[in-house]
């Protein structure tokens, strides 16, 4: 659909400026092109024929992180992210698409196996220092002008992907009730392999069986690039996989995937049949953060019942996992945009972390501000993304945290890179890795 189809939404912008509050890009550049008010003004300008489609629009359209902080602060809840993404598609249509990302969207992302091979090739190059251009992120990104600078973002890449070790299929668990499907996001699969394993192990303790799914990319990367065609292609492939499964829940440990899978009905809004398919799957999709929190609450409830103190859950004695909240390890949490705004998950993560033994949870300022990673953003707009990251690092430093926890692989890369650049000692953990964090800490110290 063209920009004009969204005139009603765009006309609701009163230029009040409230979206400036937490727009990481605006707070970094101070330029109106970086914030929802400005982006919408240009779209309105296009509709009202004051502004032409030309390359001047590239920055306003492509510097958006899609983090959604503007919508949170907007009274009219104008969905700037969606409007910008749509406009990106139109921009690419009119001004032209770059071939490099096509390769990625059309030839790699739909095929997990090809992706694994490519990842391995890149890892070899990178780890041996043999190739200058090679870095694993090449798989998840749209090649941008800042690419050479982004080279150093990942030190070392796993030689084998998660599904290279744990092949798709059904694995027995020690839990008693649920059958769980584990949706493996590309980032978890080829970069955060360690975290993927942690999730797999945790799920096995909670479920009767865990199915490691043979899914492909969720479709978010082409979607953020405005490429709706390839997005739908990936989504359909995944729906096919879902429908063949015999599970009660589909859990993913990538908050970006989770939020996007939940969005499937929307991307098919002009496509009744697929929309219906997507809607049917919707209730099954869970972010691992949601899942773990609900599981813990369940556990609490049933043991409270056993203890006969059901009516006063809060006063009940600590459960086996329950920490005192005053441990020696300081932990803080970074909200991935796709968790906090994408899915409204905020208290759950804190709930989990505060309950861990030996942990002191310290909230960091602006925890829900985007880290600047935004999927491939760090690669396409390196300088800007680093400035956004600097602000995050300052807030992190103020907490003195030993561990920074989050639940999105792209955030993990970005945060770890920031920590390295700022010479800090904080470790970045996926929330799945926190359940036996002491072991994990030991492992990493070696």
């Amino acid at each position, binding site marked *: 659909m063209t920009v004009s189809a969204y005139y*009603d939404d765009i006309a609701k912008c*009163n230029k*009040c*400026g*409230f979206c400036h*509050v937490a727009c990481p890009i605006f707070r970094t550049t*101070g330029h109106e092109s970086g914030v929802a008010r400005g982006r919408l003004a240009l779209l309105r300008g296009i509709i009202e024929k004051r502004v032409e489609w030309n390359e001047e629009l590239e920055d306003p359209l492509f510097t958006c992180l899609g983090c959604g902080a503007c919508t949170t602060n907007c009274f009219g809840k104008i969905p700037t992210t969606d409007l910008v993404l749509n406009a990106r598609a139109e921009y690419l249509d009119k001004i032209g698409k770059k071939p490099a990302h096509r390769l990625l969207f059309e030839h790699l992302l739909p095929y997990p196996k090809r992706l694994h091979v490519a990842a391995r090739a890149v890892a070899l190059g990178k780890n041996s220092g043999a190739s200058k251009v090679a870095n694993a992120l090449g798989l998840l990104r749209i090649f941008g002008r800042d690419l050479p600078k982004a080279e150093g973002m990942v030190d070392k890449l796993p030689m084998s992907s998660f599904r290279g070790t744990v092949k798709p299929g059904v694995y027995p668990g020690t839990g008693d009730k649920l059958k769980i499907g584990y949706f493996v996001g590309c980032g978890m699969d080829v970069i955060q392999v360690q975290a993927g394993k942690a999730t797999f192990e945790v799920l096995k303790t909670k479920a009767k069986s865990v199915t490691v799914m043979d899914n492909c990319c969720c479709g978010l990367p082409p979607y953020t690039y405005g490429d709706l065609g390839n997005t739908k292609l990936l989504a359909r492939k995944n729906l096919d996989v879902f429908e063949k499964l015999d599970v009660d829940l589909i859990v993913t440990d990538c908050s970006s995937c989770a939020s996007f899978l939940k969005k499937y009905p929307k991307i098919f809004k002009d496509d009744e049949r697929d929309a219906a398919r997507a809607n049917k799957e919707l209730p099954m999709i869970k972010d691992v953060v949601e899942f773990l929190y609900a599981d813990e609450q369940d556990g609490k409830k049933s043991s409270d019942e056993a203890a006969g103190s059901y009516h006063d859950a809060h006063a009940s004695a600590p459960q086996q996992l329950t920490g005192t909240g005053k441990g020696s390890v300081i932990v803080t949490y970074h909200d991935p945009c796709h968790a906090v705004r994408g899915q409204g998950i905020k208290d759950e993560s804190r709930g989990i972390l505060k309950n861990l033994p030996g942990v002191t949870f310290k909230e960091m300022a602006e925890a829900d501000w985007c880290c600047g990673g935004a999927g491939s953003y760090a690669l396409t707009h390196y300088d800007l993304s680093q400035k956004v990251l600097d602000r995050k690092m300052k807030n992190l430093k103020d907490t003195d945290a030993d561990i920074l926890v989050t639940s999105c692989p792209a955030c993990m890369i970005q945060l770890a890179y920031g920590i390295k650049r700022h010479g800090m000692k904080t470790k970045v953990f996926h929330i799945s890795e926190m359940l036996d964090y002491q072991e994990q800490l030991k492992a990493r110290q070696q």
Partner: protein
Amino acid sequence: MINESFIRSMEEIVGKEYVKHSKADMELYSYDASVVPTDMPGVVVFPGTTEEVARVLREAHRAGVPSVSRGFATNLSGGTISHSGVVVALSRLNEILEIHPESRYAVVHTGVTNLELQEAVAPFGMFFAPDPASQKVSTIGGNVGENSGGPRCLKYGVTSNHILGMKMVTADGEIVDVAGPAFDPPGYDLRGLMVGSEGCLGVATEIIVRITPKTESVITMLAIYDEIPHAARSVSEIIRAGIVPLTLEMMDNTIIKAVEMGAPCGYPQDAAAVLIIEVEGMNAGLQEQAEKIEEICMATQCREVRTAKNQAERDLLWKGRRGAFGAICNLSPNYLVNDGCVLRSRLPEALEGVREISEKYGRPVGNVFHAGDGNLHPLLMFDSRHPEELEQAHKAGWGIMEVCAELGGTISGEHGVGHEKQEAMHMIFSGNDLNTQQDVKLALDPDNLLNPGKVIPLPPEGQRRLPPSEPTILRRPGGAAAAGVKEAMGIIKKARSEKKAVRFAGNGTFNGIGNYSETPAQIVDSLQMSEIIEYDNDNQFITAGAGVTLAALQVKLGEKNQWLPIRPSYFTTDSTTGSIVAMAAVGPERVSYGGPRDMLLGLQYIDSTGSMVSAGGKVMKNVAGYDMTRLLNGSLGTLGLITEATWKVATRPETCRMVAAVGSHEKCYAAATKIANSNLLAVSVTMVPEADNWKLVVGFEGLQIVVPSQIKRCAEVMQSIGLAVSGDSEYPLEEGCHTGAFEKIWQSPFVLQADVIIARVLECYLDLERIVRPDQVLLDVACARIHAGFVDLTAEQWKKIDSLVKRCQGHVVVLKASEAFRKSNDVFGSTRPEWKLSHAIKGVLDPDRIFAPGILPGRV
């Protein structure tokens, strides 16, 4: 003109990355939050330092390019829209530079948002009082530019009351420090003039803000009404009862519904109006005040009063109020908001007028507003895609301004004039008033390059000045018709034509104030101007002729249990209110009540052509035009003869009590600073030497149920620091608890007053003693002010004192001295760069220098 080479020079100054000029960029800088027509600037620059701002302005000045300074462009009056000029975007100047909780001030870049400042000072138990609903996204520079207000301004006053000084860049690119962290520097009140000047007089880059200790607790209530006039009555009655709530905010049914449609905040949807009432202060007596308020509400036909039980409930009530503008989007895509201000008691009429206009133009309206200040915010709904709806909204907006002016109010209470209300300025100001304001602008910006063509209406085609018409709507009583004014106008006209000097006097108590003038001058006194022109105890203001003595004014106000909370240090019962204004005279209570600058709502004066000029008005909030009231305040009779002043008055405190303690100077000072920076809400904190020791005196004024507990806690602080509390006692309201001390000081042949910052009062005083030992002294710790009397003072000692005080970040003035001393010294101390600006204003408003020549700082 903006051309290639101008853009190149901008790039050289700030760096290429920080200069934008593409077509898309210009579209992005063509608007602000207002609904005035957009316009395209020529280039946008993002300077990163004050020095860069100065270089940008210097270059623009050289090239004759107009500029507009811009915070986050959330203003609602078109203030940041530029026609082909350079936009100076201040978003990169975003650092909090200094926080001094112990001296109650902070220094911030102008691009810091209001909320960022609040968050930075909160850990110290302090806050910055102005709280516009846009605080998350409006910059301190913008708050200063518009003189923004917010809910709690009812109790604490607007932005202007909380700005101590600033670093600014002038139109020709010079960096000037205006005022500073110390109170009331000599020379014209330039910072007062800058606040609310909408970027037309200079570009501020750093602001020194006053921060205030948070009070102990707060109670938030929601009062629900079936009829709007009942809510309006509650508002008047609460204030009349002598309770000053923190907030008194009203929302009508339309707004309630809009808010509830978006995110429910628990407002009853069937109510005609709700009030959000908040009281804060000491724990002691607060509950009683809340109960009293509830009682008043119920007595004025309120349906129900609910009290927030915890912070979450409190936040929810405020969330709805803060989001009220935005909630309109649930009813209509766009809105135009007016911000006229009327007398509190006339709110029902004003709202009725708004309703009629809304019907007449077919634009639905919702009202959410600062009821305690009478400051309306009618939100007129329209769809910006339909030009005819926009036009109707503009017409309705104009009609609403007319209603406000008809009801004796003003066209803008907080959002500023900008482009939007420029023509409406005629409703409330005469041609001469407006020309005078424009003169001030041109004094500081002779080439008319800073935000040109805003605020003051433009003269008719082909003319340089506006015709001297009367205001089209507002009628001001007094003025030329008041007793004694015509005669004075005649004298001044004559003096002007003969180019002879005149000096103004009240009762002559302060004829020696200011620099010694060689020029013989005719004395014009204001004693005939002794009328009370208007006294409205309901709306708590009084307009009195300049010749009315303070004592007489207090008697008049006392009849209605009110008073003017000023006790100028060296005043006698004969001193006139005109002299308070001319001298900006205050006493130690300034720290809590403010000075004349904070109590003056408006004034009238005779200018150097012998014509009347009106400034301000009589409503509680007024940002229409440049702040001429503050400019005249403290101008020592060098800009005109003040004929009358309109004061905001207060309910008399039920009780005034002081507690005193004795001990070493270190201990007295330690206790004094602790008390001054605490939330004990002392009205004055001073110390004087007594025998071999010092005596600390702390005054408290207010409700019977509160003051005793303040005294008790204050005494505890004194004891904890090791002072011997010598007891507490009631003192008379009019005199205060310091008159004896000031009388003694005034007997000395030489008297000086030094202002520094709280943290350096004692240090400064002890160093002063080393230069020359005062004969009499009073340290006003809370105001950071040193009053000292000397038997003698040499020029050399004076120089040393001057540089000492400057080192302590302050300024010092000789109030009384021998003629010989005054002849050979500038009694205002060594030159401050900002005086140049004062002199420029003087030069334009009194070109023949007939008013009190030679007495200004710098001996002008």
